[in-house]
């Protein structure tokens, strides 16, 4: 996975994205605050949803408790 290292720690860009969703934010807002392209935010958030690190509510994304612990 691009966000999660084999030892379970997060990559620097994954940490930046998770920090950006410490409070709920849209994908566009995350792209703006991290400076990463929107396609990378979309693919990274998809991985984080699958890993239980982030959750989606009404079109916005937020770090889960597990995600907060990983930052």
């Amino acid at each position: 996975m691009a966000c999660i290292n084999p030892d379970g720690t997060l990559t620097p860009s994954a940490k930046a994205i998770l920090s950006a969703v410490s409070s709920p934010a849209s994908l566009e807002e995350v792209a703006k605050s991290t400076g990463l392209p929107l396609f990378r935010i979309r693919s990274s958030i998809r991985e984080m949803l699958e890993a239980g690190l982030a959750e989606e509510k009404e079109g916005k994304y937020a770090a889960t408790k597990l995600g907060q612990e990983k930052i």
Partner: protein
Amino acid sequence: MEEKVAAETKEVVSLPRLGEPAPAFEAVTTQGPVRLEDFKGSWLVLFSHPADFTPVCTTEFMGFAEIHPELKKRDVELLGLSVDSVSSHIAWVRNIEEKMGVKIPFPIIADLNKEVATLYGMIHPGESKTETSRCVFIIDPEGVLRAMIYYPLTTGRNMQEILRLVDALQTTDKHKVATPANWKPGEKVIVPPPNTQEMAEERLKEGYECKDWYFCKKKL
């Protein structure tokens, strides 16, 4: 007779079509897994190269890195592809940075199973059965394939032409015009020809620079 049968059973390489949705894919890249839909809302230049660690491809990658800031200004993302592995791509882009001083800022698809290459008709067996040719696909923010360029293995692409093509497509979308041969931004554009007799009669009175009713230009 045998030759005829062989010709009839020869595999047909299908190409995507302009004006239709670009074929969807999910692929592994040097920046993680991506899907075509991840690029929705932005323009995308998807391009293939024959192989990592080859000289013409290296000059092209430096060229793509050079125009990357100009593409970003136009809201265009770049996505490379070859049938090499992610490890090979990583080693090559690190080598380009170390030896040539050029950082490659865009992701590269590792299409080892040729899935994306097949969808987009990037492999031309007459040239090579194991490498992708030098293809460029320009996909608009709605995911529609708007332009394709195919170059042979021996000929490096012209980066300025790719920028010019993006500019022309974006100008067409914004102003509902066409662009003449060798057009560059700032030059006059073609007013779409009238499609009724009534419109043709009116066209010459509309203040455009016209050679005839079907051939009118204007400044933007």
